[in-house]
């Protein structure tokens, strides 16, 4: 049963909210500037509640079932984080309030900056970027500003491995720099020979995702970093895969110069059906002055007990603001709460179990699904959804069939360097029982692919919706609906 659109539930004159009458004398409305019609729905509160609750029930979510979506770190989102972010003192503070009135907020942001610095081995952090991709373009702009500040304006190239997230090249273009793609070698590492050829004095930086999108730790990471530094370039780390590295290794210790964090992946803030995220950026000492601001700093003791302890400052050579106000504070509260509960030992346990879960799935599935780069992986791995014995079956069919077993499919068709890729990231919060049930489903599907491929081609069967016609959506392009009256009026 499909759910009507909110406009279909509308009836003229119906109210959904009670509001007070004005307690001040009304003022004449601005002549010539008042709109004649406001085409919003007219529905009761119960209509709204039922409508959106019913819609919610059409979603798969972490809280309804396993969600092994590679590269997305769909771990459990603790409920206490949600309560913390909604505390009155946080949720009802204005971003432009005087610093002395928001010391609690600034203290929290300061601690979060400090912890992220310590976890990743950097000298400074800005919490302002709103998401991972936003952190990337921020990082590339920092690198650009750093080189130019040193009078080295010819560095306009960013080297990016072919296994990288699509955001890496897109962020580079947005910053006005040129992308040079690097191939991967047979073990899934960067091709060192290609890297050597690409390194010259026009290279601004290398963008490196480590572990990479195959879930593999770059085996020559030291050589790669040294090579880039030797030619005067910097190393940008895509922190999307930090869930494998907490307490294991600090990117700063490996020589990375810049890294963005995804608080919505590693630090358990919810994905919200596509956002909001939060993408703080950490940098090594020579780049600290270029961070976007404001950032929070601790104020030196000056003897006065009344003085605020924290304040907002703009770094000296800042690239500027990357968004209005201070960043996604609500996400900072959630990540803070999570990190405070985990502490030092808990953070290491997160990575240990994320990596254990991924390797366990890899070990259990490698005889059934071809794993092209089959070695100890980190928090995720990539298998192929294709078999010689089942020529018509594709990764997409495996993905859709998994839904019938109550599982969200892995990421498919990424990374681009693997054919029919199924990128599987279980995260640390899933139990062995859940992983075993997933393995069982994957094996059943592999058998079906040979015996009865039509079951896969027509999947999913048990979800409220069957496969959707994406070609038609792009061709006919219906992107919004109008109220019924407007539709009738043409």
């Amino acid at each position: 049963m499909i759910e009507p659109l909110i406009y279909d539930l509308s009836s003229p004159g119906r109210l959904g909210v009670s509001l007070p009458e004005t307690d001040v004398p009304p003022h004449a409305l601005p002549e010539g500037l008042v709109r004649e019609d406001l085409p919003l729905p007219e529905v009761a509160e119960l209509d709204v509640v039922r409508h959106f609750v019913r819609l919610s029930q059409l979603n798969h979510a972490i809280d309804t079932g396993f969600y092994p979506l590679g590269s997305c770190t769909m771990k459990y989102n603790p409920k206490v984080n949600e309560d913390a972010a909604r505390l009155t003192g946080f949720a009802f503070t204005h971003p432009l309030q005087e610093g002395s009135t928001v010391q609690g907020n600034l203290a929290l942001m300061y601690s979060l900056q400090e912890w992220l610095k310590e976890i990743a081995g950097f000298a400074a952090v800005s919490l302002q970027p709103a998401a991972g991709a936003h952190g990337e373009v921020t990082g590339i702009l920092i690198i650009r500003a750093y080189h130019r500040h040193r009078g080295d304006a010819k560095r306009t190239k960013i080297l990016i491995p072919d296994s990288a997230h699509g955001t890496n090249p897109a962020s580079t273009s947005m910053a006005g720099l040129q992308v040079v793609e690097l191939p991967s070698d047979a073990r899934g590492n960067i091709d060192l020979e290609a890297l050597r050829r690409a390194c010259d004095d026009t290279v601004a930086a290398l963008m490196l995702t480590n572990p990479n999108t195959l879930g593999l730790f770059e085996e020559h990471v030291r050589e790669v970093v040294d090579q880039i530094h030797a030619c005067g370039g910097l190393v940008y780390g895509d922190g999307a895969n930090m869930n494998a590295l907490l307490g294991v290794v600090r990117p700063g210790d490996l020589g990375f110069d810049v890294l963005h964090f995804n608080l919505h992946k590693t630090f358990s803030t919810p994905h919200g059906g596509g956002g909001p995220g939060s993408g703080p950026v950490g940098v090594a000492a020579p780049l600290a002055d270029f961070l976007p601001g404001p950032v929070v700093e601790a104020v030196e003791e000056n003897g006065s007990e009344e003085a605020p302890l924290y304040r907002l400052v703009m770094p000296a050579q800042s690239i500027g603001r990357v968004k209005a106000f201070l960043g996604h504070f609500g996400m900072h509260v959630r990540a803070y709460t999570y990190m405070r509960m985990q502490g030092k030992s808990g953070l290491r346990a997160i990575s240990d179990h994320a990596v254990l879960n991924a390797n366990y799935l890899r070990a259990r599935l490698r005889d059934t699904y071809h794993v092209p780069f089959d070695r100890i992986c980190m928090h995720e791995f990539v298998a192929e959804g294709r078999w010689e014995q089942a020529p018509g079956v594709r990764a997409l069919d495996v993905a859709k069939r998994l839904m019938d077993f109550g599982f969200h499919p892995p990421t498919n068709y990424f990374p681009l360097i693997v054919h029919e890729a199924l990128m599987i990231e279980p995260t640390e919060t899933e139990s062995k029982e859940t992983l075993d049930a997933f393995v069982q489903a994957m094996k059943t599907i592999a058998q079906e692919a040979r015996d009865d491929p039509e079951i896969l081609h027509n999947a999913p069967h048990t979800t409220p919706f069957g496969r959707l016609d994406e070609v038609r959506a792009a061709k006919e392009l219906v992107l919004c609906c109008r109220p019924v009256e407007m539709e009738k009026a043409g």
Partner: protein
Amino acid sequence: MAYIPHTERDRQAMLAAVGVGSLDELYQAVPRDVRFPDLDLPEPLSEMEVMAEVQALAEANVDTRHYACFLGAGAYNHFIPSVVDHILRRNEFYTAYTPYQPEVSQGTLQSIFEYQSLICNLTGMDVSNASHYDGATALAEAVTLALAHHRGKRSTLLLSPAIHPHYRQVVRTYMQGMQVKIHGDESCCTGPDDLIRRLDDQTAMVAVQYPDFFGHVADFRALAAAVHAAGALLCVVVNPLALGLLKPPSAFDADVVVGEGQPLGIPLSFGGPYLGLFTTKNEYVRKMAGRLVGQTVDSRGQRGFVLTLTPREQHIRREKATSNICTNQGLMALASAVYLSVMGKQGLRKVAELCYHKAHYAAEAIRRVPGYGVWNEGEFFHEFVAKCPKPVAEINEILLEHEIIGGYDVGTDYPELKDHMLLAFTEMNSKEEIDDLVSALEEASHD
């Protein structure tokens, strides 16, 4: 260990299946000398201990539930009906990812389609994307659209000085790697006529704000005509709540309408997460950044929704994409969709009128206080600039003693407007609060 379900027995069985003897052995590829750093971090706390700690941090703040708030400047203290947060707390919404698998994501997809529809109908525009990070980044992406539209042949951008200072700063940050000339906002108080005079065949886009940073509302029809005659695009930055009362920017023939969606049911939350609105005309849809949801049918003939026109996006187009945006503000878009649904045609108009009446009541009262004045000329919506007899910081300090969060110091961004305070009024400010503000302002002028 919080949120990790493994028993010791599970761990041993799993390590055996992998073929390693310990967890440490999983990290052979990590250089040994930097493996397992001893991090200087606090030890774990229990849930009740953490909650006590964050509660104490929250209580160290002054908040708008305990103090009267007249601070706006791009983020506003509005009433949020309970139903909004109850829907946001639906686990199926907030713990889902981007709806890449439409068969199990119709809840998110239809909600975004409805969000797009509500925002299109509110702004009068043809298409809305599924959101940007905030109003400032939405404006920066509008600039990118304009540059792409002119295919590099035009590279000048005219910004009204009455656009939020943060937004203009963000545009400059985004554009620092591009060969773009940005001007028009050198002085605080030039109007649309100055922008018209500066138009030439290099102008890619002109951007204005409505209501503007100082609260003014003006008809931009003459500006739009001049901008279009010069072959440029017009972008209007809106406060969507004001559109409950005011003519939509489509009435001025705006090409792109962006704005901050926070007033539509999103808490102040110290600056975020908020909601970047982005709408345009049909002809620019393929140049637009961000996700779009479109209607289609499924294999069973049911109406359904999918992400569409994805070839514009980074995961397909990589360096040639319209933007790098991936994660957006999905849940905040849902908040605004629920808010607009429950407010409806009559509720949103009423909230907008309440804001308008209260601001005008306050302006009349402040005008009469010796030493103060109203700087604005012409119409304003729910915000105006008060001329003050002394520095804004000093006045605000006295207001705080009266449990009042005062206005924004406009001199921070516009040196010409030293000792000018931007005050915002919403349905949350009772007459009594406004009267208290007026008498506290009077008291502040005496000291």
